């Protein structure tokens, strides 16, 4: 074995142990190649074809070791469904040397039937506060060429300049989570961000978590019911678990946007909720209530959507974390399964076609307008 080979082996072992190194983009690429080669020759020298697949460059900023560990676990869970090159950017003042350091890891996943594997790569860059100024250049250098880049912006407390100055220019899809917003005020910040991103899509994990509920509710108005009761709706109640106000507002916005309701005013209610008044396109009026309630719930935080049209009621209500009850006048009530999606499932959906839902942008804008009606005396936080 030559000296170069020894050195390469030592580097490989160092990388394999996850030890930090001084950041050298060329070396990162070489060592990722070595990991790929090692995986291909795994199993006693038996050569097995290993796909080195990447459908996305996925950039994920995090703060501190704890958040980084959560992020890594999320990437590990995403990898089997969507191969990505994950570039994790961690700001950590306790990191030690004060310099930017990198580690690499790989995910090799056996496929059903044996033999087939997916190979995803994770590059973690860690640096102290202020290092965010260097992250943009590092991301640009480490992107797999020709592969789209998505940024998963989960922590609203990260320095916003990292996103707006460094990452947005290279981001083809921005993924956020309004479910973790500190409050509806962030909806307007997010709407401004979405405007900067256009025509590139913004995907919202909270919006995607609402998909099952929206589907079930929409299904109530399939034939033979049709859209008639929606046009003449007089009352809407959206119940959410504490902290789920943003999700509830998005549901009201979804219905308001599609049904052409004109928001008039909003009033705080004694139970800590909201009452929103609307004009309908046919000249009628409608009251909508956003009501904090108790009950078992998944991360969507949504408990029920109840719509009244004349004396008829159309309701989707959560009976348990994984069950919902459908109620409409023409058929007996029916309990159906409600999927509780993991964060990884939702992230995978955000990277797929559902992550470029143009309706979300419209509903986000509408929800921002709803919040702008809010009396200043009410602090949602």
């Amino acid at each position, binding site marked *: 074995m030559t000296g170069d080979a020894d050195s390469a082996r030592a580097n490989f072992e160092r990388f394999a142990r996850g030890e930090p190194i001084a950041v050298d983009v060329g070396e990162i690429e070489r060592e990722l190649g070595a990991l790929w080669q090692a995986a291909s020759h795994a199993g006693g020298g038996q050569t097995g074809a290993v*796909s080195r*697949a990447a459908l996305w460059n996925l950039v994920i900023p995090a703060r501190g070791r704890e958040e980084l560990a959560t992020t890594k676990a999320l990437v590990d869970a995403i990898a089997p*469904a969507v191969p990505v090159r994950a570039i994790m950017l961690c700001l950590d003042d306790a990191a030690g040397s004060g310099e930017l350091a990198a580690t690499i890891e790989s995910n090799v996943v056996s496929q059903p039937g044996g033999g087939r594997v997916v190979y995803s790569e994770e590059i973690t860059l860690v640096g102290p506060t202020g290092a965010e100024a260097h992250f943009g250049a590092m991301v640009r250098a480490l992107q797999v060429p020709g592969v789209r880049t998505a940024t998963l912006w989960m922590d609203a407390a990260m320095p916003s300049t990292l996103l707006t100055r460094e990452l947005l220019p290279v981001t083809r899809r921005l993924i956020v989570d309004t479910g973790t917003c500190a409050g509806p005020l962030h909806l307007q910040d997010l709407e401004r961000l979405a405007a900067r991103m256009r025509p590139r899509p913004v995907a919202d994990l909270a919006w995607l978590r609402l998909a099952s509920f929206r589907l079930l509710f929409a299904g109530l108005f399939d034939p033979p019911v049709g859209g008639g009761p929606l046009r003449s709706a007089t009352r809407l109640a959206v119940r959410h678990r504490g902290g789920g106000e943003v999700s509830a507002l998005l549901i009201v916005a979804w219905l308001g946007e599609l*049904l052409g309701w004109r928001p008039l005013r909003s009033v705080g209610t004694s139970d800590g909720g909201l009452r929103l008044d609307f004009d309908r396109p046919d000249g009628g009026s409608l009251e909508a209530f956003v009501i904090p309630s108790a009950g078992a719930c998944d991360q969507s935080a949504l408990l029920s959507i109840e719509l009244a049209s004349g004396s008829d009621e159309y309701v989707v209500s959560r009976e348990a974390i994984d069950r919902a009850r459908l109620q409409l006048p*023409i058929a007996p009530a029916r309990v159906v399964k409600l999927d509780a999606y993991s964060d990884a499932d939702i992230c995978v959906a955000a990277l797929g076609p559902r992550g470029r839902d143009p309706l979300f942008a419209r509903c986000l804008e509408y929800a921002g307008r709803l919040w702008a009606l809010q009396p200043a005396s009410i602090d949602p936080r």
Partner: protein
Amino acid sequence: MEKISVPSSALPNPLREGLVEERIPEPATMVIFGASGDLARRKLLPALYSLTRDRLLPARFAVLGFGRHAQDDDAFREEMRRGCDEFARRRPVDAPLWAAFARNLFYQQGAYDDPAAFQRLKVRLEEIERTLGLPGNRVFYLSTPPSAFAPVIRSLGQADLAPKPAPGKPFARVIIEKPFGVDLETARALNRQVHEILDERQIYRIDHYLGKETVQNLLVFRFANGIFEPLWNNHFVDHVQITGSETVGVEGRGGYFEQAGSMRDMVQNHLLQVLSLAAMEPPVAFEADEVRDEKLKVLKALRHIPESEFEHQVVRAQYAAGSIAGRAVPGYRAEPAVNPQSTTETYVALKLFIDSWRWAGVPFYLRSGKRLPKRVTEIAIHFKEAPHLLFGQKKGQAIRPNVLSIRIQPDEGIALNFGSKMPGPAMEIAPVSMEFRYGSSFGFEPPEAYERLLLDCLLGDGTLFTRGDEVEASWSWVSRIHQHWAAETAAGKTTLPAYAAGSWGPEEADRMLAADGRAWRLP
């Protein structure tokens, strides 16, 4: 101007906007004729369950099984549960979800040609629809013996269960399993009978090969990527091989296969459909009729094999005893329900030409057989060699032409073989493969073909179904071969070589390609 009052039920559902990606059809009832048969248990109900599991069916959806076998709803549900336990893509079956799904499964006994049974069916359907708040949308799945297709459709018409499409009215669609006729005459006759009752837009002739992800990807691959289509013609393509091989024998269906043979069972439908997708011109839109128009042109452009060329372009054979996966298997003539002197082909290899500007002079080699070593369906596009060979002229060192192989089953995906210089000082060239596999690149196995096709029918999308004129065009080409074989038999000149089970077919098939300086690819 007089105002027209639109009943609220006729208003579209505005909440469906933005849920397009979900492709969820309107509430409906699916009636399965032949519900006590194998297809319902192994494929149809597992597909419907998996669609439900994936939230691709509406919450209001019912299945009414119809069959000659007497059983009640609960027995039907139990049988279908066992089918889902064994065959559903989404396993294990989720108990609460199954409970909700099974509540809307029903069964009705009856004969396919009994008008009274269809009146009872109508009453039952209306009762189910009333109880479950269903709008009267209906899909009738004919999972019956082919002899029942016409009687069932006639009975549907007599009972007014399948009215022609009209705006604002519930839909009635009919899915017809293969085989659609056994030759050109019977296919034409069946088309006539079906069209007496149904509009062509209501008819969904199913060929489950078209529901496979790679078959659909073939269109994307060709027409959504700029680099392949310019090569997809006789300037660059040397020849095309399409293989549909099975390891299984007749599997207890000897009676059926004796009448069908490989030509009817595989070539007339699956392989010619795959061929037409591989060879067609770009459609003006990805719409059902536009795609099917282009497929039809290919089928009509298939050159009929002249009598003088039969022995050079058609090989049929029958499997003899041999070994599959380390297990001794009997020859075809020793299979149950098979005539010991049978002349039915279990293997067929064809060399055919498409008379079009694009494909002039390019042979398409098709082969299909039972008891071959491997179950595989693939299209392999063999490109011409580079016009001037700079490398590989040393003795024993040949450069293989590029091959693009499109694997339809199993391991759906696409691979491109090309020559690459081996590392080192010498100019050694080795073939390497660049592979795309659905399972690896997208991290999940594609849905079952039946799931896709059932969903498409519920959505009213006929793109992946075969139109009546396509069926007739393919039978028109295939029936000439059958006529030739019939004449051979009548003259006592049947040539039917045997091949050992577990081999890749008879030597005659190898010789057919060798005569052109080519060889079958090992898939």
